[in-house]
């Protein structure tokens, strides 16, 4: 079971999308950004997803503060769409927190979930 914490703008949309894509393989929780990132830092949750209006900005600032810059990845910003290869690489590099714009929930979430689930299944 993969635990994912969701926060920020349109958190409910993100959570619904995660459940829709990954079904019973994941447990999604909507939390505040501080609590969400803290749980990931303490190992109580596996990943953190956040969105804001412009991407990168509000989406990840708490996560970066708590988890460090290297554990966070900005999937999309205004004018820059999510890209599968970048996301795959980020997951492989151990990124725990993903940020994107609230406009890109529908395109970003499936790509991130696919990368996470692929990484899990290849590990065995």
């Amino acid at each position, binding site marked *: 079971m993969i635990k994912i914490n969701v926060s920020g*703008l349109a958190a409910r949309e993100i959570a619904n999308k995660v459940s829709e894509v990954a079904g019973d393989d994941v447990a999604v929780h909507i939390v505040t950004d501080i609590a969400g990132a803290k749980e990931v830092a303490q190992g109580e949750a596996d990943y953190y997803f956040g969105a804001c209006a412009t991407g990168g900005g509000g989406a990840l600032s708490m996560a970066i503060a708590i988890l460090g810059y290297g554990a966070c990845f900005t999937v999309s910003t*205004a*004018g820059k769409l999510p890209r599968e290869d970048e996301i795959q690489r980020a997951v492989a590099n151990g990124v725990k927190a993903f940020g994107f714009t609230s*406009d890109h929930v529908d395109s970003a979430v499936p790509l991130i979930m696919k990368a996470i689930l692929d990484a899990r299944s290849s590990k065995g």
Partner: protein
Amino acid sequence: MWIRLGVMAFAGGLGAALANRGIVIFHDGLRPAVTELIEGRMPRSQLAPIAFSTCFGLILVFGIPFTLASTVILSHALWLGTDIIGTWLPGPFEKNGAWKSRLGLLGSIALGALYGTMLVLGLQGFILLNDRLPVNIHLSIGEIARPVIFTLAAYPALTVAYQYGLKHGLVAFLLTLIIRQLASKLGLAHPDTWALLTGLALLMSHAIQEGRREPAPKDSFLIPLEQLKRIRSHLPWIVVLGATYALASNLAVLMEGPQSLLALAHGDRLAAIHFTIARAISFLPLRTMSALTTGVFLMDGLGFAPTLGLVAPNAAIAALAGGIVITVEAISLVWIAGFFSRYPCYLKVVNNIRTAMTKLLEVASLVGGMVAANQMAPGLGFFAVAGLYLLNETAGSPVMRSAVGPVAVILVGITLNILAFLHLM
């Protein structure tokens, strides 16, 4: 005109210089990367492309369209540009000698000032050009502002709905509506303000009740003292920044967000003030935490400098008040962070306010965009803007939903002028 140019040149030079020294950064996503540079974990050669890719798109699809639509410069158009300039030029954090760092600082000031000047001239050129064209975009584009301004009073009720459920939200929404109607019927000035205050009072009463019930979290947030010291050591520069920002707001040259920008351009200063306050509150915990954890301050402070710029009766008082309020903001960072970590329900409230305001802007700017385009070209306008909105969705939303309205109106305007030029209209 000369005053506008001067203020924007100064703001541009100042913003780029502060970004170059790693003192203040506008983009929330770039700020932590600048900390990586300052603390030696990331070379500038790696930072510069990150700055460009995070900022440039946003200037293009957000800053410029709202600026052209309103004839007031959206702060994003200026400060994202100065972020890029300041991070590209060499600074004090690399081992490349003092002269190169000094050159980077001078270059930042010069390029930043040039950029600020270009924004004013470019906008002025667009306005002049428009007056000579067969179809004047600016005659209609004010229509975008109206729905945005009048949706202001809805955000507290929406926030109640997001946080406390649909039933409470609906009650708050109806009460807001009734008070607005009563105020308007009784002939009170500013019925929307009364409606807004009603909504806010209801939201606050919900939040206070939840705050009382909520147990205090066990672990509180640890304040990174090093970063706090770094921000405090830059206080003189931050004061100058706040004064400049408030001055530019007072002169209606520069505005902080799309809602206040449209309200100001439409001549509704009171609504603009409400919007600046709402936006500042909705970003309060985010901006506070971002500043405290990175040690890099925020170009718009905690957001109240533009508010005071709008409230101030003249430019001198605006500058003075801006300098004071940004100082208070910088000093109270720790207190604010402490408050939000003690009361998570207020953290949720402000996050939901942000969602509500974003969603309202998306709806209102789309409707406004359709009305504006339709005023230029009856029938065709509705068709074109709705079509462009959904085409943008299908393309995965490269243009932010809230900016599709203005972008589409500008595109329709350009197309109509081409058609008129070809005698096809």
